[in-house]
């Protein structure tokens, strides 16, 4: 009940903010709306009882990625005018509307088979997910240790690459 | 002393911490008042009519031309001072009048609360300069020095000789 209300509120905020990101001409305001959208998505994670994901979303997206993006906006000075659409927007609009219709249709029409699982009566239990995620990732047999290491290497490569790209000659 | 990193910073903290045990130097002005220097050159002149002969040396000495004196001849062929004025609004407190007085009839005062609303009010006449509550500064009058109250020290005793 509470989670449902939260879902509706955050879903509406997320969609409106995402539309704002696309429609807003002022790039800085678009970035702020993007932050709002990230926040709403964090709320959605909360309503999915994914507490760790919600916090990770706030930490990484709102704290790091949005700051990076705003830095990018500031360093490239086309803030006021530079977020217009290109010539292909009508066709893109048609394609995206069609895709959205298709996605929504598929999502609604598919039988997700949730009932069968729900009869196992496991869904109502809301437990803290943090240690469970740690178990899922670091488990020796079924875990994601290799992807984790690859992710770490990816981040390192990204950091070095970013420094190498932007460094003054 | 060990040359550890941050030792200087810790010493800085120590110095500031020691300050907490010291006496505060702030004075709360309207309630508490500082004693000015015993040799202060303050905002007013004190005139002793008994010693003044009306020679007007002070008038000649004043670089601003603030001092105005009018005399008439009285008995024994001596000058009687009829009018003696100092325009404190234009006074630069150079002290030349006090220094030049051959009869030691002029003194600096010790008052420092003499602000007025209008410039005209700053002209001190005979009554004001001879008022009974005037305190004389020991500026150029070393014999007054020991009678005056000591100056309130804002810094510590070991620096007293500087004052």
């Amino acid at each position, binding site marked *: 009940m*509470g*989670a449902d209300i939260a879902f509706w509120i955050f879903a509406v905020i997320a969609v409106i903010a995402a539309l704002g990101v696309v429609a807003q001409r002022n790039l800085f*305001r678009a970035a702020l709306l993007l932050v709002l959208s990230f926040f709403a998505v964090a709320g959605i994670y909360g309503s999915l009882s994914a*507490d760790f994901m919600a916090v990770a979303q706030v930490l990484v997206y*709102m704290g790091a990625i949005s700051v990076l993006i705003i830095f990018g906006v*500031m360093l490239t000075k086309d*803030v006021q005018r530079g977020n217009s659409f290109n010539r292909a927007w009508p066709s893109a609009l048609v394609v995206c509307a069609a895709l959205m219709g298709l996605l929504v249709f598929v999502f609604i029409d598919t039988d997700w088979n949730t009932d069968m699982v729900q009869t196992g009566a496991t869904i109502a239990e809301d437990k803290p997910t943090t240690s469970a995620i740690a178990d899922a990732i670091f488990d020796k047999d079924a875990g994601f240790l290799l992807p984790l290491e690859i992710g770490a290497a990816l981040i390192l490569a990204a950091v070095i690459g970013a420094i190498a790209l932007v460094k003054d000659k | 002393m060990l040359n550890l990193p941050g030792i200087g*910073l810790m010493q800085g903290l120590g110095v500031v911490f020691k300050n907490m045990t010291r006496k505060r130097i702030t004075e709360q002005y309207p309630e508490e008042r500082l004693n000015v220097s015993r040799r202060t050159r303050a905002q007013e002149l004190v005139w002793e009519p008994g010693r003044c002969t009306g020679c007007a040396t002070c008038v000649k000495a004043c670089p601003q031309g603030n001092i105005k004196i009018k005399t008439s001849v009285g008995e024994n062929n001596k000058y009687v001072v009829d009018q003696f004025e100092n325009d404190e609004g234009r006074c630069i407190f150079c002290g030349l009048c006090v220094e030049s007085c051959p009869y030691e009839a002029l003194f600096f005062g010790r008052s420092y609360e003499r602000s007025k609303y209008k410039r005209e009010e700053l002209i001190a006449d005979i009554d004001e300069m001879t008022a009974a509550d005037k305190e004389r500064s020991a500026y150029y009058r070393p014999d007054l020095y020991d009678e005056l109250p000591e100056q309130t020290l804002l810094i510590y005793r070991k620096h007293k000789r500087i004052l």
Partner: protein
Amino acid sequence: MMTIPDVVTQAPLASWQLWDSALDSGWAIDNFWAHLALFAVGIIGFVLMVVMGFIWYERRLISVMQLRIGPNRAGPFGLLQPVADAIKVMLKEDIVPTVADKWVHFLAPIVVFVPVLLMFAVIPIHEGVGLIPDLNIGILFIVAVGSIETVAVFMAGYGSNNKYALVGAMRSVAQMVSYEMPMAFAVIAVVMVAGTLSMQGIVQAQSIPFALLLPMAFIFYFTCALAELQRTPFDLLEAESEIIAGYHIEYSGMKFATFYLGEYGGAIAQCAIITTLFLGGWKGPILPPVLWFMIKLFTMFGVIVWIRAAWPRVRIDQLMGFAWKYMLPLSLINLLVVAIEVIILDGDAIRWWLVPVNFAITIGLMTAWAGMFKIGGGSESA
């Protein structure tokens, strides 16, 4: 001590799940809403009161250290001075630059202040006393919420449409982002030893205050807290000759007051976090727990003020160099050391004999690293 409904103390995931369980169980609804309203109002009142207390405390303490007296006119011992300041600032004209981005300019002070209030939701003043003191991701929540403030700084800098505000905002954000990382590593060290992310759990785990057990994490967290709060020696924003007042140049009246409130509220929050993570929270002998919490809070702020009275400001290159070259590698090494200790001791690293060991390691590492650390051609060390 007030009684806390059961529903609150049993590790809720998020507040709306709290609502759910409260709604399902039926009887708990009054209790829950009462709890929510009580602590929401309580937190705001607490923050406002302690902000006033901190302003007075800082001004009096720093004047004692500078051989002055400080505010002593309004009320007994000048206690009403913050009230007088607040009234003054509320009566000021609210000036908005004509070229400013009005909405962003308007929202920035609010976005500064809200995360500060949110942080207090998970800080336990006493066992179980708080909005959600036993949130199972408590300290992560605080770190995450604290990172929102960078966005607010950007909003203030951009919304003012003033180049000094913008440059100041860029500098502040660079500073805050740089120092967030060693801060997070210090927090991770605490979490590894305590074995929980919940603020209440961390306090309960501290049979030894972690400031003694993890001295390096404590020092680094404290330094980073100073940098996040932009207080001396990292208060580059107040370097008037360089960037005037940083991102809040164009703010006046109530909006400036909100920034000020956010600044001091952040100071309270960081002091409360340090108290909780490193100083054993509400724990203490004889005196009641809430009083212990307040004593530790004010002591920490006293240290911040003490540093403000004593230390000079660092240069911007020293600031960044210190974060990236000194604190980041050292905090990683510290993390490694703590991890090894936790593994060797089989998960229970809260032992008294570790205190001298860790102090020795800290002093050794910091000295060794300071020898390697040079900035700007000089020999400036930590």
